[in-house]
């Protein structure tokens, strides 16, 4: 096996480990009848929101607002997604249309 294949397998193993940890941990930590600590419940109601905010920023971190195209493809595509999603509320339409708009922007408009 090449070094690249091994490196890929290690990264995938990390993804499996983290996913399994988040899915199995509650069943290991809180067996039958034990009450969930209040702090954990609080994290459960808040962290998911904050995490998605972090991830949106993560996806947009490489935009340069000070050089052409000034993040315009991203801004326009996200505006389309937000408006469509508030209007129709259909995830597939919002994701599909937003991605198509973005592809059109960077392939045809802001070349």
């Amino acid at each position, binding site marked *: 096996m090449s070094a*690249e294949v091994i*490196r890929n397998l*290690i*990264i*995938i193993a*990390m*993804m*499996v*480990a*983290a*996913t399994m*940890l*988040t*899915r*199995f*941990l*509650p*069943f290991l930590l*809180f067996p039958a009848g034990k009450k969930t600590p*209040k*702090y*954990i419940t*609080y*994290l*459960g*109601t*808040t*962290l*998911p*929101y*904050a*995490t*998605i*905010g*972090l*991830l*949106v*920023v*993560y*996806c947009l*971190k*490489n935009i340069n607002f000070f050089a052409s195209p000034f993040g315009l493809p*991203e801004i326009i*595509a*996200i505006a389309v*997604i*937000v408006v469509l*999603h*508030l209007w129709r509320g259909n*995830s*597939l339409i*919002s*994701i599909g249309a*937003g*991605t198509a708009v*973005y*592809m059109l*922007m*960077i*392939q045809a408009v802001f070349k």
Partner: protein
Amino acid sequence: MDENKKLAALRYAFPRTIPVMAGYLVLGAAYGILMNVNGYGFWWALMISVIVYAGSLQYLGLQFLVAAVNPIYAFFMSLMLNARHLFYGISMLDKYRDAGKLKPYLIFSLSDETFSVVCHEQPPKTLPIHWVYFWVSILDQCYWIIGTVIGVLLGSMIKFDTKGMDFALTALFVVIFVDQWKSGNGHRAALIGVLASVACVVIFGQNAFIIPAMILILGIITLDYKKSEKREEV
């Protein structure tokens, strides 16, 4: 267990998974196309959809593979992205408690979409309830895997310029963000997430902001919790 009862559970479960089928076939196919375009063909995509089975993480994981990131970084990013699953588990503690030999798979396959189906599901008492959960879970994962395979095959057949297609991940997160915002809860937490992250991009730069942002977010949320606790004591 009586085979007829298992079949009855399958007949009950299948119609409930149809909305997930539509979503998973499309998003799975988009994932397969992206994997293929980036040089990760059939076996990579199939393996990841079988053993990782976490939609948004798989999209993000493609970036890990392409950028050859540090495995520790991959682990913590995955943990952060999947932290919400902790709370799906907490919600399902009682329902999955007595699932016996089905339990490991039920927990393994508790994706966002499967959770959204099983968390409100109240099958009739005549059906073996854990088999209903099992069929929902395994059908959903099958849709995801089939979608992935279709995507890989499509991606290798049709030649079109896929530049910018990875924006689907950004779109997915924006959609989740809007859904959460519409639900009316967690506006404050959502803003903490965005603002703390932007602040850390500015301070630490785009390549080193993730870990400080996670710490900052956890810190602010913990402070909020301490404050709300104090209010309750008074």
